[in-house]
């Protein structure tokens, strides 16, 4: 399925391990600056990424996808949790500065990601220069990278962001991330704002770069089709938690968690005869300030049982050993009657 399929990535030791990542934002506005509440943006998120694979992260807006990405590169400081790269714990065995050389990020808004007062070569050379590279070498690297992302250096190096198209700007943003020779690139909705034909070009570029530079991607998107196309494994998030994670084929063919099923059910079909007639999910996600007790999805889940509002489900291994879902229906003896279909 995936164009990036690599041979048995699960057998390798994970390149990136995330343990129990948590971030609660304090809400200001209370009396005398006292916190009026906390937004549980990311709540106990754990996952592994093997070297060379692409992990897709999907979920509704506000589910904590982007916050997770920013926590990974320490743009937002996590409240708790561990980030381990190559077996080395960031903050203990590895400085945040070193971590950022291994893990870079591409943002959604290609225009806002580039300083409007900076030429493309300066934008790309900035990172290497603050990491001790000489200006001449950094600019040379910037030119090589521009060529690598398909932008002719002579034409584009001296340009400003407003002179480029969205696709070209996003190529520059990718080049800037690659200037560190990172192992992992986090693509936070990196192609979502592009129109479809340009999106396809950039996705192809990403695929080429991945095989050429042996990169590992964390691909965040709300576009389920693109995620299916590009990912080896997919992680589904809901209200700051991981509800399901598994290999792309297994997850798309046999979604286990009711939320994943609803999400996939909402995917527009190419075949008009198979159009979904009813909205698979009603309403908006609950407020993350006061998330529902127990399973956070139980307020919208049509399989919700009594146990769902009482205790939080744990990640349960499914038929495919690499496929997990956090749903009581799969936990024997939880008191949940099951989803009414075998899985």
């Amino acid at each position: 399925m995936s164009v990036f399929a690599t041979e048995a990535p699960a057998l390798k030791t994970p390149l990136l391990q995330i343990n129990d990542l948590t971030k609660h934002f304090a809400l200001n506005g209370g009396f005398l600056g006292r916190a009026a509440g906390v937004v549980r943006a990311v709540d106990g998120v754990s996952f592994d990424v093997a070297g060379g694979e692409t992990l897709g992260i999907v979920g509704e807006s506000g589910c904590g996808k982007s916050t997770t990405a920013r926590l990974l590169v320490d743009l937002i400081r996590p409240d708790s949790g561990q980030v381990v790269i190559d077996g080395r714990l960031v903050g203990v065995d590895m400085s945040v500065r070193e971590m950022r050389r291994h893990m870079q990020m591409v943002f959604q808004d290609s225009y806002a990601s580039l300083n409007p007062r900076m030429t493309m070569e300066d934008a790309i050379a900035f990172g290497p220069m603050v990491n001790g590279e000489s200006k001449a070498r950094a600019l040379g690297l910037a030119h090589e990278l521009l060529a690598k992302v398909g932008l002719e250096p002579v034409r584009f190096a001296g340009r400003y962001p407003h002179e480029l198209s969205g696709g070209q700007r996003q190529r520059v943003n990718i080049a800037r991330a690659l200037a560190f020779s990172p192992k992992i690139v986090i693509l936070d909705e990196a192609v979502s704002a592009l129109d479809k034909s340009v999106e396809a070009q950039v996705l192809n570029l990403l695929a080429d770069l991945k095989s050429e530079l042996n990169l590992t991607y964390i691909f965040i998107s709300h576009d389920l089709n693109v995620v299916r196309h590009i990912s080896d494994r997919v992680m589904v998030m809901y209200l700051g938690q991981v509800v399901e994670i598994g290999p792309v084929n297994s997850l798309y063919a046999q979604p286990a968690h009711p939320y994943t099923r609803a999400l996939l059910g909402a995917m527009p079909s190419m075949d008009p005869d198979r159009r979904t007639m009813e909205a698979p999910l009603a309403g908006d996600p609950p407020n993350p300030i006061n998330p529902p007790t127990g399973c956070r999805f139980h307020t919208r889940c049509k399989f919700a049982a009594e146990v769902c509002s009482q205790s939080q489900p744990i990640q349960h291994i499914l038929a495919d050993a690499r496929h997990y879902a956090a749903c009581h229906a799969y936990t024997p003896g939880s008191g949940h009657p099951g989803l009414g279909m075998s899985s």
Partner: protein
Amino acid sequence: MTATTLDAIATVQKSPGYWNNVLRRFRRDPVAMFALFVVLALILMAVFAPLVAPADPYRASMLRRLRPIGTEGFPLGTDELGRDMLTRLIYGGRLSLLMGVTPVIIAFFVGSFIGITAGYLGGRVNTVLMRTIDVFFAFPSVLLAIALSGALGAGVFNGLLSLTIVFVPPIARIAESVTTAVRKIEYVEAARASGASAFTIVRVHVLGNVIGPIFVYATGLISVSLILASGLSFLGLGVKPPEPEWGLMLNTLRNAIYVQPWVAALPGLMIFITSISFNLLSDSLRSAMDVKS
């Protein structure tokens, strides 16, 4: 890196930068060029006052007090002590411009520093700095200037000091709000993800994007400063007689308003021309900068 890439760097097609575009648009604006001409003329006139002025600004004569405009030898008449008005207006520009421009320049640096620091660091630093700044907003700027120079005592230096203190808070507030907005844009996040220090990020990424609006705002304050400085002198809190200064001249000539109204109004006219020129300059600068590309 190969030799060819080095050659390529040299042959890169450079686009004109943002500031080049601003300068180009500014130069095409006739109002801007006219205002710039007036301001430069006033500054040159003040700097070269001894060469330009026809007489001694302090030489008084009881015999030729309050002559009208167009008097032989005194093209703009004489003041209440018989001194040549033209000479005194030319010399008056020295102190008036100094009092008008210097506080804004100092306040521009101090206010930008405070505002950008507060805006970029955010959090508690922001709260402490900006709430302190807010205290100054409790007083109207005119009253604050009068109170400060009243407390410090009259004189050019104290006048400058009190005016500077008056202009730091509004500039700091503008600087803080633009910096806070810029800090949240993704290119700053990308720069943070590159491991650059806060100082480097502010210098390379923030400064160039916030200094324009702050500068425009500050140039707009020059006219206010001129009028406040003249006001302080008018009240006897700035420049002391017999020094020529437009505000002070307006004060000492106010009794002559029924005898020689046109002569008495001349210092006011100078203040008006200067401040409107600075305002036009500020407006043109704003519109020259107000384009995305």
